[in-house]
């Protein structure tokens, strides 16, 4: 695990990987969403509005995956003191927040023609909104902490602890529709029970999800590279100032 702890070695792999993931993921996302929206079938009940699914569902998954990434990185940072873990965790925050916001916005737009409401405070919608606010808090905290102890190391220990604690919202989001009565429907895709989405809609949806995940990976790499370069510059400045 520590083999890639060396930023130089990490960058050697990250540099070509960023473009590769971005291009493959972006292309896949666009093609699958376009296929679903333009050529996929309408739904027997909802009609055309079901096409919002191709962005709503991948955005929901990645909004949650982003915080899973933060939680795993935070654990690696706190337990093994992995030098890149903090950087990786912080890099997940903005893309996670944007995907969570897309999930909320498209869900609201989808809710109006299907349920008859833009917003309702049911368990699923509320817990997803909480996730979005957790991202905002995490970003504010990481920035504040970096400015506060930039002198010492900028390790971001508080941020990592917050990242771990915030992870308790993930099972709440997931199980909200199973354990509580909600307006949001139950889960359509599960490992145990398979999918209740017809194959003609499921394949473009899964393709879009994979594409969005790869794109997410590319964005995380970009943000990690930006922070590593910024840190390098800062260190240099400080050394010059100390002379």
């Amino acid at each position, binding site marked *: 695990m520590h083999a890639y702890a060396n930023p130089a070695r990490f960058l050697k792999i990250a540099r070509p990987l*960023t473009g590769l993931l971005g291009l493959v993921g972006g292309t896949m996302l666009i093609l699958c969403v376009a296929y679903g929206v333009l050529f996929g079938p309408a739904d027997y009940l909802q009609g055309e509005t079901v096409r919002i699914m191709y962005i*709503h569902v991948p*955005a929901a998954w990645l909004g949650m995956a982003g915080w899973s990434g933060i939680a795993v990185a935070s654990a690696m940072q706190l337990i093994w003191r992995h030098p890149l873990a903090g950087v990786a965790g912080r890099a997940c925050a903005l893309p996670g927040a944007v995907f969570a916001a897309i999930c909320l*916005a498209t869900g609201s*737009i989808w809710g109006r023609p299907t349920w008859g409401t833009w917003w309702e405070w049911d368990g699923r919608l509320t817990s997803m909104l909480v996730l979005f606010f957790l991202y905002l808090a995490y970003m504010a905290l990481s920035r504040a902490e970096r400015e506060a102890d930039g002198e010492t190391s900028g390790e971001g220990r508080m941020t990592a602890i917050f990242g771990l604690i915030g992870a308790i919202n993930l099972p709440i989001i997931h199980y909200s529709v199973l354990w509580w009565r909600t307006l949001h429907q139950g889960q359509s895709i599960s490992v145990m029970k398979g999918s209740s989405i017809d194959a003609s809609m499921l394949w473009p949806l899964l393709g879009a999800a994979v594409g969005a995940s790869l794109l997410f990976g590319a964005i995380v790499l970009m943000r990690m590279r*930006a922070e590593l*370069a910024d840190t390098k510059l800062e260190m240099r400045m400080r050394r010059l100032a100390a002379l």
Partner: protein
Amino acid sequence: MNQWDFVIAAYGVSVPALGWLVLVSFNQMRRAEQAVDEMMRGRK
């Protein structure tokens, strides 16, 4: 409202949001790495 209006609205929100995310992240990375490259060149 037509059902398609909602579909268009949903993607009308999502596409700019994703585009902004990619652009902002890419620019931050490029600017920071260019600054590092210049610094390294200056040191030689």
